[in-house]
């Protein structure tokens, strides 16, 4: 790979240890994937923040980088393992909390905005169309390539951090136009409405086509929240970094030869697959990916004046919660016994086996609820999840 004088000096350690290590990572990735050169990135999203996933090893690595590493571009952070201010209300131990705060502090020393959200595009990290960035967090990666039209590979935590500390990423994969073309057309033969339906669509498509890029046709309307839901589930169940929706997403693609259909029955099957047997529900989780202010307003309206039986988390970014505080949504929600969990979510918090059955409107939430946290899961609309929270029961 061809390096500029500046990049060569970074690799030789002339810009410090953190930059040297970062450049080594980027060069190795460039070699593996056949990149010819490095390109500048305008923003970074770093995943791998929860102490539950990082453990002491990850913390040690971050502390080492933080000794002399400083980010060169706008860099935001994925959710942590707890609400950084009100962890006690979520039942997090003091021991975990102190380690988690150390992790966030190390990121902060590097100049990273400790936004702790999986939806950076809602809180001020919004690249323009066509820009190259280096994002981790699979749902944000897919939203970025598809809905925003900026370009990123599916980075892991360390490689995203390396891009942040150097300002560069190797040019391969999704940064190259030829790899961003749709390869299969997915005709949607049913009407879609709501985040639940778009989540189920993502699951159905992901399972059918894996990590291929689809051109989705037959969808007339899609809100920000619905696209956020689709991005999360299609990346979780298929692994694709991008999708197109005809008439909705901004990038252009050739019409692919290969065609498949997704029917109402496929969506029903996807929902059924994500719903385990049984009636009891002891955890309800909304906000995967993090809830927008519009979603929180809706939950506040549906919940106002009621009382919940199950543990109920509405996960969101800190800045969104502050808006909710100002609007009285937080009070309306928390008066019922439900909790707004900022900075974290039910996927990355240390709650493995602490609950038996989680109800959610998120297809991605179901995947990690089962795999990582060993819960049984129920998937349904926001309204249905709220009924489950109030009664502690799931109505089929």
């Amino acid at each position: 790979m061809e390096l500029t004088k500046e990049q060569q000096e970074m690799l030789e350690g002339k810009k410090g240890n953190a930059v040297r290590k970062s450049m080594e990572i980027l060069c190795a990735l460039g070699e593996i994937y056949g990149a010819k050169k490095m390109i500048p990135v305008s923003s970074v999203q770093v995943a791998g923040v929860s102490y539950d996933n990082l453990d002491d090893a990850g913390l040690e690595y971050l502390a080492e980088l933080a000794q002399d590493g400083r980010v060169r571009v706008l860099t935001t952070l994925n959710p942590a393992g707890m609400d950084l201010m009100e962890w006690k209300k979520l039942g997090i131990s003091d021991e975990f909390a102190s380690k988690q705060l150390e992790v966030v502090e190390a990121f902060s020393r590097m100049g990273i905005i400790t936004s702790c959200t999986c939806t950076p595009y809602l809180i001020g990290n919004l690249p323009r169309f066509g820009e190259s960035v280096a994002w981790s967090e699979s749902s944000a990666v897919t939203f970025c390539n598809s809905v925003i039209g900026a370009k990123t590979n599916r980075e892991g935590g360390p490689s995203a951090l390396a891009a942040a500390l150097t300002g560069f990423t190797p040019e391969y994969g999704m940064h190259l136009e030829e790899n961003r073309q749709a390869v299969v057309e997915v005709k949607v033969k049913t009407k879609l409405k709501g985040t639940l339906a778009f989540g189920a669509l993502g699951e159905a498509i992901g399972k059918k086509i894996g990590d291929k890029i689809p051109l989705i046709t037959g969808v007339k309307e899609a809100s920000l929240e619905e696209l956020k839901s689709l991005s999360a589930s299609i990346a979780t169940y298929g692994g694709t970094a991008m999708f197109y929706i005809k008439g909705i997403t901004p990038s252009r693609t050739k019409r692919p030869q290969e065609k498949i259909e997704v029917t109402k029955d496929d969506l029903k099957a996807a929902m059924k697959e994500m719903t385990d047997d049984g009636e009891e529900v002891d955890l309800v989780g909304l906000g995967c990916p993090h809830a927008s202010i519009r979603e929180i307003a809706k939950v506040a309206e549906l919940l106002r004046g009621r009382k919940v039986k199950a543990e109920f988390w509405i996960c969101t970014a800190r800045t969104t919660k502050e808006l909710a505080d100002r609007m009285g949504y937080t009070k309306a929600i928390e008066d019922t016994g439900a909790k707004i969990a900022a900075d974290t979510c039910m996927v990355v918090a240390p709650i493995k086996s602490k609950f038996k059955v989680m109800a959610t409107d998120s297809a991605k939430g179901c995947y990690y609820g089962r795999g990582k946290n060993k819960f049984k899961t129920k998937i349904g609309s926001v309204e249905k999840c709220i009924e489950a929270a109030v009664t502690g029961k799931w109505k089929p």
Partner: protein
Amino acid sequence: MEAVRGSNQVKGFRAGDWKMEELKARKIAKGFAEGEVLRSEQAISFFGGVNADNGVVVEKDHPLEGKSISGKILVFPNCKGSTVGSYVLYQLKKKGIAPKAMIAKETDAIVAVGAIISEIPMVDHVEGGGYDRLKDGMKVKVEADEGKIVLL
């Protein structure tokens, strides 16, 4: 070239001309190390598949289940699973129980990044069918910077 070990018996070699056999490979992470091969016929998941406290493979029904990768030249086809796997390698290295070096058939971003941040020498793409000649218990030297594996 076959049977180069003890090569004073091999036709064309003279005494003093003794050379150890070398395999060419692609450098992933720099450094060199000498040790005994532990070979896995299956992909390894470092996050969840290896106990970070003792280096023992804990994945159920994995061919290396119950064996420790510590201090070995770990030979494996590829890596699978979460990106947190990079940090597990780092944790093993900090505890002094990482593999001495790694030789993969194919490298993905997780293990490449893990090897680099942990400073564990690593190569892949062994040339000329050399990957299949790396057997359990064999002594080898990995010289990642030169992109070679020396069979001892």
